[in-house]
């Protein structure tokens, strides 16, 4: 092989290396620009989905709310009810552990159901939400607290 041909092959290799580098950087830049500019339209505001799911626990009659009064029922607060009203075993969605407590006028817990979990709950919560609620037990209304532990907060 002549010296000229060797030089030609060498320069081709350098050309392809430079081309590959520039092409990669350009493609990367394009993907970055497109995703950062347009992908925002499909972004859900942080906390909104969790907020809506928590509403299910506090308002849905398929969950714990008593049909006639609209208040959380002590008797309905079970694993079975929860797993029926939040029916998933997928780890790709949020998981919850809930506990319910009746509180006296001094703010002390007098009775507690601790705790019930959704089927996909693995025991590693990252967020705790407390809600002051009314509880219906034996046809009487009590002041109470619903504590919600959220797993997979960012999913």
């Amino acid at each position, binding site marked *: 092989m002549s010296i000229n041909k060797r030089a030609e092959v060498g320069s081709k290799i350098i050309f392809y290396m430079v081309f590959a580098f520039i092409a990669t950087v350009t493609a990367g830049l394009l993907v970055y620009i497109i995703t950062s500019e347009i992908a925002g339209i499909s972004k859900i505001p942080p906390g*909104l989905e969790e907020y809506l799911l928590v509403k299910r626990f506090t*308002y849905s009659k398929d969950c714990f709310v008593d049909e006639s009064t609209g208040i959380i029922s002590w008797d309905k607060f079970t694993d079975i009810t929860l797993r029926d009203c939040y029916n998933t075993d997928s780890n790709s969605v949020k998981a919850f552990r809930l506990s319910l407590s009746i509180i006296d006028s001094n703010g002390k817990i007098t009775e507690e159901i601790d705790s019930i979990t959704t089927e996909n709950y693995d025991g590693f919560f990252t967020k705790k939400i407390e809600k002051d609620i009314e509880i219906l037990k034996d046809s009487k209304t009590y002041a109470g607290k619903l504590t919600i532990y959220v797993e997979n907060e960012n999913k």
Partner: protein
Amino acid sequence: MKKRGQLTFWMMISVVGAILVAYVLANIAVEWGTGSIFVKSRLARQVALEINSLYAVPGNSYIINENPYNFSISLKDNEVRVFQDNDMIVGTASYLFIKSGNQKINLNLRYPEYIVISKINGKILLSDKVDDFFKDIIKAQNFKDSKILIFANPQLDINAYELAELIVRGYNKIFQEIDYGYKPMDSYDAVLSMHSTADDFASIYVNKKSPKYAESLGLAKIIEKELSKSSIQTELNQIEQLDGNLKEALDNDKLAVYIKIPSSSKRIEIGKSIYSALEGYSK
């Protein structure tokens, strides 16, 4: 040594394969480049969130979405998928929702004009039909792009409306940064909603920025008769909860109706009387 026929056959396979790969890559590039994949993803997420919201509403309720981008949609088990016939990879625009109960969900709509998601007696339904009443509203707003109207059906109790309000606010949060046509609730000419706040107050209001629309939507009847200002004022006097801002809003016609009800028992009682007054509204 390979025969000539064999060579031609493998060459054809390679060419066809290369064309297919090129077509798929081009399709993906177009999806990403035009942002189509993100719009589909947004719709999938939006519908999944709406379904989650509907499950939280105590009563029957439904949500109407326009479908200006002409996508097809399917709900299978607990997944929403948005797609078009020419999509090479199906399932990239999808999002999970969480079912309530054991309903087997397998619903599809091909290029619907509207995507109407409803929860009737605990079951999620999907339809492309909007009753005339809601169609009128949508036309009246001169919607050019994707819009959402949310009305909870006052079947069971006041919380349905609270959630409807919540969803509207939630969607405002989603779309206020996006130029895809969603407008804040205030921009609607007539929106009826009801909500109760965390401190156990319930409220109902009819936004009547445009009396014309209110009349065409059947709201005038409510505003002028069943829930006239005087009757509301009577209610308010009884409850003695009218605050300055609210009074100003009533006086300036920004709000036609607004009631605060301080206790749960009172809330349900008055809520029921409002519902019966509103019966004509949903017909």
